[in-house]
């Protein structure tokens, strides 16, 4: 530890100190931020199980239902410091309910006269910030400078996305697709410049990403148009306050962007690497190596998107099956949107491979012409 400290520069030590201090500070803050919430928060001090019954539902699923008598201390607002009593019922499967132990913090509504309460939600901010910190620290420890840049670029992208959605909501006459299109250009340029610096490799990747995303969007549009959107169940999209088709297309565009960007930078940096190792390399050789690299990555890249999209449907699929829904109906009701996104993203990934090869070659030829 001592030699480790001696090896670090003052600036590095200062950054480590800053990170540790803000980590501890923010953890202390979220554990004591009750005054900032308008909704009453209560901390469970005692939870006694009062009743436990076995149930069988209409589809012969066995479960248990447990009743808890909870005593909790109010942490903020007019009743601060007082104890309230709460009845809580939960099932063994916990699909929509929770069991509570002393120490858990919950948002409640309080009945003025009887000093009883109802649990509305769980206070989750302290866990969220803990996971966010763990993520950032792991990325910093393993990735060092690049790790820091990735954390920053994720934060910047999240801010751009939030800002873009604000603009969309305030000006509903502007199409969501146009706003997403502009955000995509921003995401691409900022992420790639930040991680890879200003050079021809990055410019190649930016152009290839934009062309790749655009062509996958066009193909998806064409496919939707030609089939009359048959087989797409928009009703499976939860959380919809807007036209489902627009939200679907915008999500498709943003969702495939990350993978397309990944492919574009992998392709362009390896092709430029080959060129820099050997300036005389034949374009034909570059093309062939490019295709080889592309073959290696297309399988695992499409897999990333596929699993990221489809696994989110597992709880809903289980619920359908357990409620005796037939296999085909359940799959088409719950997976059509995710599968369409994964397939369209896969198309974007594969198309970006030749696009990135030809863009790299274009830049390399220009470089050669200058010499």
């Amino acid at each position, binding site marked *: 530890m001592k030699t480790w400290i001696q090896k670090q520069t003052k600036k590095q030590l200062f950054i480590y100190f800053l990170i540790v201090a803000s980590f501890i500070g923010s953890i202390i803050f979220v554990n004591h931020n009750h005054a900032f919430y308008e909704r009453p928060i209560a901390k469970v001090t005692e939870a006694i199980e009062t009743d436990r019954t076995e149930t069988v539902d209409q589809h012969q699923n066995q479960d248990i239902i447990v009743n808890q008598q909870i005593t909790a201390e109010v942490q903020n607002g007019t009743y601060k410091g007082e104890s309230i009593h709460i009845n809580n019922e939960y099932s063994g499967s916990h699909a929509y309910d929770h069991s509570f132990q002393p120490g858990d913090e919950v948002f409640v509504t309080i009945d003025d006269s009887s000093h009883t309460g109802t649990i509305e939600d769980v206070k*989750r901010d302290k866990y969220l910030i803990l996971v966010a910190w763990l993520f950032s620290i*792991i990325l910093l420890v393993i*990735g060092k400078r690049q790790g820091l840049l990735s954390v920053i670029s994720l934060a910047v992208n999240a801010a751009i996305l939030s800002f873009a959605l604000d603009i969309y909501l305030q000006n509903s006459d502007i199409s969501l697709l146009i706003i997403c299109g502009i955000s995509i250009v921003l995401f691409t340029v900022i992420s790639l410049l930040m991680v890879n610096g200003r050079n021809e490799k990055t410019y190649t990747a930016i152009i290839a990403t934009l062309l790749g995303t655009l062509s996958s969007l066009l193909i998806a549009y064409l496919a939707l148009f030609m089939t009359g959107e048959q087989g797409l169940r928009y009703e499976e999209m939860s959380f919809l306050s807007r036209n489902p088709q627009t939200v679907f297309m915008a999500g498709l565009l943003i969702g495939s*962007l990350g993978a397309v960007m990944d492919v574009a930078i992998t392709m362009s940096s390896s092709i430029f690497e080959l060129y820099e190792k050997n300036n005389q390399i034949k374009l034909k050789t570059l093309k062939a190596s490019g295709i080889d690299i592309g073959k290696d990555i297309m399988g695992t890249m*499409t897999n990333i998107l596929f699993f990221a999209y489809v696994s989110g449907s597992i709880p809903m699929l289980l*619920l359908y099956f357990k*409620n005796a829904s037939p296999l085909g109906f359940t799959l088409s009701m719950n997976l059509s949107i995710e599968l369409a996104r994964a397939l369209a993203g896969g198309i974007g990934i594969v198309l970006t491979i030749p696009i990135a090869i030809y863009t790299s070659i274009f830049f390399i030829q220009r470089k050669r012409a200058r010499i």
Partner: protein
Amino acid sequence: MSVLVLLSIILFVLMAIVGGKKGVKSFIALFLNFGVLIITILVMNDPNANPIWLTLLACTFISAISLFYINDVNSKTTMAFFSTIITLVILFFFIIIITEQSMIQGFGAEESEELMTFSLHIGIDFVKVATSVIIMSTIGAIVDTAISITSPMREIHHHNPTITRKDLFMAGIRIGRDILGTSTNTLFFAFFGGYMGLLIWFKDLSYSFGEIINAKVFNDEMITILTAGMGVALVIPIASWMTSYYLVTMGTKKK
């Protein structure tokens, strides 16, 4: 013709043109993986089955298909396979604790309307299901990162057979750092694309900041993204260590 069939045909044709035989194999692997996923979910319906063990088993099959079927069995795919499994086991412990504490399992209040007609007392532990979902969401990215590290490491060892274990390990870490940013980005955009509707919903219904950061659906999504990112980062030292150990230490023993 359904959209999905048409999109599948387009993807297949493109993969075959660009990737040749390997492209066709990649496409078939995608379908095999889909099959593994569906079978896993069907088995999860049995209340006696433990979703966590099932997920670990499914992930073993999925990594084997993505690595061995597309790239054949060799030292790079074997090392990538084992580092994927070790990373998953480490992640499991963390995810189980965090899902239990933050209670992000199951469905949120926003989804209750849609669930009205369903019986929710179905005898499956949704805390375990939530753990499975997070692991499944990140398995693709972990496998991808693992193979992207072990494959160039083998090249480096091949070209410099005298390289020390430490140097080879550091080379693996450096490669990993370069892909860390793009891989986390891939996951980030994939999730945000999928949750566009949720974000617009929050803004349309003018949720307050405090309501958003405590909502179950939002936490579920964020914790999935962040844990997936951790998985991608963790597999880097694990894959680098395993490959350098195998290539250098085991290599000298053989001689």
